[in-house]
Structure formats: C-alpha cells, structure tokens
C-alpha cells in the first residue's frame, strides 16, 4: 500500500482494545513515514485525492494514498496561509509579511498567478466558495478586496470588522455574511457570492458583534456578541430577526458556538462552564449541559488514561537494550474505566488576566448529529461527550495532559483527539483506545485532521506530519 520512493517499509500491527473497555474492537492502523511541514500548513484537497503541505518556501502536493510527490511549487516567501479551492484545482498561498498571494494550478503547473496588495498590507486571504475569487483583507481591516480569477473585475467591500469570525460563507457557497462596523454600530451584510451583489444590509442590536455563522442548511445566520455580554441573535436569510437569546447578564458570556449538521440544534458554550442547546423550532433553550467537578450521572462512562512506565531492572540495562533506544523510555498507556462518582481535575484560572482559561472553548457535533464533544478550559485534561438523543452525558475522557485537538470522523461517530504526546486517542460508542504513533523518532501530535472519507488521519507535529490509515471493517 505504501510504495513511496523513500523505500520505507510499513509498520503494521493490530490494536486490540483492552478488556477493561466496553467491547472488543479490532482494527488496523497503518502509519506512514514522517514528512516535514512548517507552520502546521497541511491540507487535504476537497476531493480527497491530494495532500498539500508547505515546507518553508515550498508547496508540496502529494497523492494521498501513495504519498508520492506530484507537484512542487516555490513561493516567494515563507507561506503563512494555504488553502485549496473548492474544486481542488487551485491552491492559494498567502504570505502576509510581503502582502503577496500566489495561486497555483494542479492541472497546469506552468500557470501562475500573483496578487500583490502592496503597501496596503495583508491580514487574511481566502477563497470564495466557487473557487474563482480570492478575498483579501487588508491590514487594519481597511477593506476586503475581491479578486477574480475569471476576469479583470475587482470588488471592494468597506468597513469590515476585525473580530473573532467576521466572515462566513453558507454551506452551499451561495451567500456570504460579513460583519461591518460603521459609526460605532454593528451591521451584517449578506452578499450573493455569484456576483458579489449586496443582498441585505441590516444593523444588529449588539454592543460588539463578535462573530457570525450560517446554519448548515443556509437559512439561518447566528450572530453573537463579544464575551462582555451574553447575546445570541438569529437572523433569517432575508435579514429578519428570528430570535434573541441571552442566558444571563454581567458575567462573561459566549465563548464558542456550533451548529449541528442537521441545523436542528445550536450549541452555545459560555464562560460559566455550561453548554446551552437551542432548538431550531422555537429558538429557546432545549437543555443545559453542565460540566461539574464531580461526575455522578450514572449513565456516563469515565475513561481515564493510565500511563505505565516500563519498570527497568538493573540487569536489563545491557548494551543491546540501550541501543534499542527510546523503546525503553516509551510509556504505554491505556484506558481504564473508573467507577462513579469521579472527581475531574480542575485548574483554577487566573482571574486577574483577560480571556481567562475557564468556560467551554470548543464544541463539535458528530457527523450523524448524535454526539456532542465539549472541552471546558478549566478542566483542560478532560473531554466530555454528550448523547444528543438522550440529552445526557455519554462519556468523559480524562487524559494525562491537556487536550490539544479533537475532531470527529466526517462519516462515523468516531472522535480522534491528541494531547501533544506521541499518541493518538480515539473514542467511539463502543469504547476508547490509545495508539502510539509508530514512526521513527519522536513525534508529538499537535493537531489532527480527518480525510473526507473517514479512512485516514493527518497528524501534525511541530514541524512534522504523518498519515495514519485506518483499516475499515470491510477490509479486515
């Protein structure tokens, strides 16, 4: 399967779940060789065939299965942001320091395109959903320039707001919502991506609008205020205000927002360590998920990662053993199910600083709408998984280090997470496993990306990446 030119052989092994976890599950994990990357810039193409990575000045395009290098492009400066176009034909490389954007074509490697913003500076650059326009945000958010690759037209959008999430495209790529601020008031503009025509423009009743997000069905726009005020506004596609939701006053408010894939639920994570779920029919709170320090809910399963450092007796320290290298010092870890009630380790945040490390900072729904994963910042080593059907806590994963990244499988209810060590962890309703990344040398997993088919994972280290291929049940 892995037949790359560097001639490395695969390491192939089966991982069996430990008996202490719920069910036995057997699947193979195949780790590829380690490649270099810089800046955590590594993206899989939308059609799932190619993998693009940036190594300093260079853009490397590989085939996802064979990992052979298909194309190699050289940019003018170190790449700060890299993005595939939606049809997987073009790749955008933005170099913010130089104010340059270079676009490369996979079909025609000799084709080139360079956009120079000049002295106006460049703060962010992204594709439009049709893959033929590039939106550049200038420094100080002076304006957003829309460059077209099809014709000579250039559009300008004034007064964009510099906030957490000031721009969002709807899932079908037809509409763009942009947050603007004029005369100390917040506005939302809805553009038609076809020809950048302004469809709607309306003021919002917010103190400091912090972000907007379209629902997956593209009909509702969620807009929320900054954390100084808890306020969530829901607008219809035609600009009507559908509903306002505010859970409480004065304390720090919304920290994270996520729509469920079916657009049925809107999950709002706030600084009071709770996630509130709004339903799409009445836009009222359906349920509140709390993250208490002591878990007593009887239906939840608490998985605790337990590390086992190998015990080395003095007689084992032969030359041969030492030459084996790091295997002696590799800690094995597995999950143990702890019985309730369980105390979750809490890290008290420093209240004197701004943006305290408390509250729900990350929420993610599984692809089948069934599960919700949340992370509470003052319980950084724990990950909470909620069952949306039962509206209750399903599982809690307690790791030995703070959870850095967790991502749901785009096809199945399977969650992959990493804590910055050399292991990746996966949770599914059947149980939990911990897998050491079997590559040469040390590899500290900093972030994870799923392939669109759910068959493989891209693991990103500090300046390395490797792929992990998961054998599906049919292949066994």
């Amino acid at each position, binding site marked *: 399967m892995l037949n790359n030119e560097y001639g490395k052989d695969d390491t192939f092994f089966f991982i069996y779940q430990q008996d202490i976890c719920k069910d036995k599950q057997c699947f193979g994990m195949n780790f590829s060789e380690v490649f270099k990357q810089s800046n955590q810039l590594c993206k899989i193409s939308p059609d799932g065939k190619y993998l693009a990575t940036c190594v300093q000045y260079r853009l490397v395009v590989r085939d996802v299965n064979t990992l052979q290098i298909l194309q190699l492009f050289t940019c003018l400066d170190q790449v700060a942001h890299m993005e595939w176009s939606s049809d997987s034909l073009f790749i955008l490389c933005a170099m913010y320091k130089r104010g340059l954007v270079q*676009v490369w074509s996979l079909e025609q490697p000799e084709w080139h395109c*360079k*956009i120079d913003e000049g002295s106006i500076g460049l703060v962010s650059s992204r594709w439009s959903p049709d893959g*033929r326009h590039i939106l550049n945000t200038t420094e100080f958010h002076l304006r957003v320039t829309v460059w077209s690759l099809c014709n000579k037209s250039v559009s300008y959008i004034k007064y964009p707001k510099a906030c957490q999430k000031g721009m969002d495209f709807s899932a079908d790529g037809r509409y763009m919502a942009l947050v603007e601020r004029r005369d*100390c008031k917040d506005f939302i503009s809805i553009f038609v991506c076809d020809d950048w025509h302004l469809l709607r423009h309306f003021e919002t009743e917010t103190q400091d609008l912090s972000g907007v997000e379209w629902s997956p069905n593209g009909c509702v726009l969620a807009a929320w205020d900054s954390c100084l005020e808890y306020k969530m506004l829901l607008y219809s596609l035609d600009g009507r205000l559908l509903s306002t939701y505010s859970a409480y006053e004065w304390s720090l408010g919304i920290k994270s927002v996520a729509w469920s894939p079916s657009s049925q639920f809107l999950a709002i994570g706030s600084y009071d360590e709770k996630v509130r779920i709004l339903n799409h029919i009445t836009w009222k709170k359906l349920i509140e998920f709390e993250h208490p320090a002591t878990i007593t809910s009887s239906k939840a399963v608490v998985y605790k990662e337990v590390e086992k450092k190998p015990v080395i007796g003095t007689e084992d320290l032969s030359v041969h053993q030492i030459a084996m290298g790091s295997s002696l010092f590799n800690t094995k870890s597995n999950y143990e199910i702890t019985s309730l009630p369980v105390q979750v380790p809490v890290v008290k945040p420093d209240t004197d600083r701004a943006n305290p490390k408390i509250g729900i900072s990350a929420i993610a729904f599984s692809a089948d709408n069934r599960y919700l994963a949340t992370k509470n910042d003052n319980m950084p080593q724990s990950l909470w998984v909620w069952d949306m059907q039962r509206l209750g806590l399903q599982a809690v994963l307690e790791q030995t280090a703070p959870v850095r990244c967790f991502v749901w499988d785009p096809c199945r209810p399977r969650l992959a997470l990493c804590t910055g060590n050399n292991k990746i962890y996966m949770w599914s309703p059947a149980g939990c496993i911990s897998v050491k990344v079997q590559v040469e040398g040390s590899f500290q997993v900093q972030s994870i990306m799923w392939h669109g088919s759910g068959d493989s994972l891209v693991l990103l280290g500090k300046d390395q990446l490797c792929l992990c291929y998961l054998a599906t049940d049919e292949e066994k």
Partner: protein
Amino acid sequence: MPPSRQYSHSTMPLLPVSPYSGPSDFCTENNISECMLYISQLSSLGLPSIFYDLNGIRELDVTSALNGMYDLLQLQRRTMGMVEELEVEQLKVSSDLHCQQLSSSKLKDQLELSKKENIRLRERERQLEINVKSLQSCLKNEKEEVQKLQNIIASRATQYNHDMKRKEREFNKLKERLNQLLADRKDKKQMDVLNYVGRSDGRRSQWKTVKTDAHESEMYKTLLNEFDKHQKELMLENAELRKVLQQMKREMVGILSPKKHSQKEEKCTEFTDQQAASDEEESSEMSCEHAREKLTNSIRQQWRKLKHHVENLDNKSMVQLGREVGEEMISKDVHQDEMERLKMEIQQCKDFIQTQQQLLQQQLNTPCDEETAAVLNDCYMLEEKERLKEEWKTFEEQRKNFEMERRSFTEAAIRLGHERKMFEEDRATWLKHQFLNMTFTEHMAIKTQNALSDSVQEQKH
C-alpha cells in the same frame, strides 16, 4: 353538802370518753336532796322530770329516773358515735391538710424552677434578637456595598463605552486617512496572472447587470423550500404523534373498561361520543383547534382514570404484599438481573455459533478439490482397512480354534457321561449284592460269593 363542794362538782367537766374510774363521790347519803336537785338538770335537757310531786314534796320517781338514765345513756352513745365520726373526719382532714401542704410545697418549688427557666429563656431570646439585629444590619451594609459596587461598575462601563467609542471614531478617521493615502498612490498592476481561468461551473462570465430581482427571488425560493421541508417534517411528526395518541387512548380505554363495571354505562356514552369525534378526526386529518383539543382532553381524562386505577392497584398490592407468596412477584432488580443474564447467555451462544460456523467454513474450505480430497480420505482409510483385515484374520483363526476345542470338549463330555453311567450301574449292582449278603456267615458267603462273583465277573470279562 357544803355549797363549795357542790360548786366544784357542778363545775366538774363532763368526761364522756373517760373510762370509768371508779364510783364518783358526787352523791353521799347526806346530800341526796342536793344531788336530786342537781340531777333535775335533766329536765333542761328535755327529759321528763325525775320527780313527782307527792304532797308538795318532790320525791324521786325511780322509773322516770331510770328512764332518764336510759335516755342519758342513749344520748351518750349517740354522742360517742358522733365523736368517733368526728375523730375520723378530723384524721382525714389532717391527712388531707398534710397532703395539701406537701403538694403546695412541691408546686412552690416548681414555680420557682419555671420562673428561673423563664428568665433564662428571656435572656436567650434577648441575645438572639440582638444577634438578628446585628446580622440584619450587616446584611444591609453588604447590600449597600453591592449596590455601590454595581453603580461603580455601571458608571465605569459607561465611561469605558464612551472612551471606546471615542477611540473607535479616531481609529476610523485614521483608517479613512490611510485609505485615502493608499488610494492616491498609484499602485502598479496588482494582480499578475498568466491567463484568466474559466468559471468553475463552466459558464461564460457575464456582465454585472443589476439582477436584484433574480437574487431576491432566489433567496426567497431557498427560504421557502426550507420552510416547506420543515413543515413537511413537522406534519409527519404531528401525524405520527396523533396516531400514537389515538392508539394510547384506545389501549387505555381497553384497559379501563373491563375493570370498572359500575361506571360502564356512563363510559359507554362518553366513549361513543369520543369515538365519533375521533372518527371524524381520522377521516378528515385536519388539525382544527376543536378536534385537537378534544383529543388531548380525552387523552388526559383517560390517563387520569388509568392513574387512579394503577394507584388503587398499588395500594392493594402493598396490603397484600405481606400475604402473597414471593415467587409470583419478582422485584424489578431481580427481573433486570435475569434479563442481563439471559442477554449474556444469548450473546455467548451467538458467539459460539459464529465460531462454530467459522470453523465449519474453514473445514469445508481447506481441501482444494474433490478428487484429492477423496484420495486423501482413501489413503487414510487404507491403513485402517489393512489393519482391520489383519485383525479379522486373527479373529477368524481364533474362532476356528475355539470351535474345534469346543467340539472335542463336547465329545469328551459325552464319553465321560457314558462312563459315568456305566460306573454307576456297576456300583449299584455291587451294593445290591453287598446288601443281600449281610451276616458273618453271609459275610463268608459273601466272600465266597464275592469270590464267586469275582470269578463270575472275571469270567464275564
């Protein structure tokens, strides 16, 4: 009798209870007439005079004196009785008095104690009141402080907002200025592209005409589609729920009606009404307010009845719980355990079956083709066959041997039988001879006879 003596005697107290201490020396032979005058006091007691007049001299009438004495005795007896009674009463009274004194002293003590307790409680109440007052004042202070802090926060918030707005305006001005400066500067061609690419959807790029209507209609179409989809989903859900409710109602009616015989008639009429209504609903499938309300109301009623019924059953079962045998009613936990166990068993059996199937599959799959399989089978069999054949041979030989031996044994047995018979006959004849020739002479005769018989026998043989 000297009058002084008389006087002393007259002042002598009457001693009713004193025992008789000897004859009194009241009357002597000399002072009889004075004594008679003294005794005539009796008349003051209401008794008839003891004298009778005889010729102007008062003479003692013995009978009346005796009567008088008898009356006096009676009087005395009565008074004794009265005295006794009085004595008893006095005792009673004195003991009562004693009791009362004791109780009064006790009550006095109790009163003292309760007064002390009262004082103590009052003291405590006072202290608590002071405590409460101090706490209330603390609370008031805290509230005031909170209010003050909130006011401070509010005022600071407004101040910050104001400052923020001011800074923002300044920032906007800067941005505008910067924009102007940058726009004024003639930047060279900013986008350098080899050739323009076609649109992703393949269409030719069009002029940017004002197509607001098209966009609007597009947008509204999307929204309407979404609403339609949503409404369809809701209607489906609604229909399902209504079906479920209907079914529930029917089932509840079914459960309740056989049990309550007394109210059956009323129910029947109720049901028929509701059935009619529900039939209407079912037929029309329109969600008009009226029909909906009717359905929900009827469901509620049925549910209430069912609840009452279940509660009654619960009460009855609680009463009977002690009496009934435990086997019939298993607790929920036991039931659940059983279920778990059975489920596990089923799972184990399934696994087992699966492994068996796999093994069987393996078995069937491993031989490559039929011929070789047959040959293989044969070659295994061949060894077996050879072995068996040999065994058969040895077995047959042994059998033959046994047959022969048996035959010879039977022959020998027959011969033996014959010989025995012969021997028995001889013996018998010999004995007969012996018996016949029993005396000494006989013995001699026997001898001779024996000799003779022997010789005869010898001759015979």
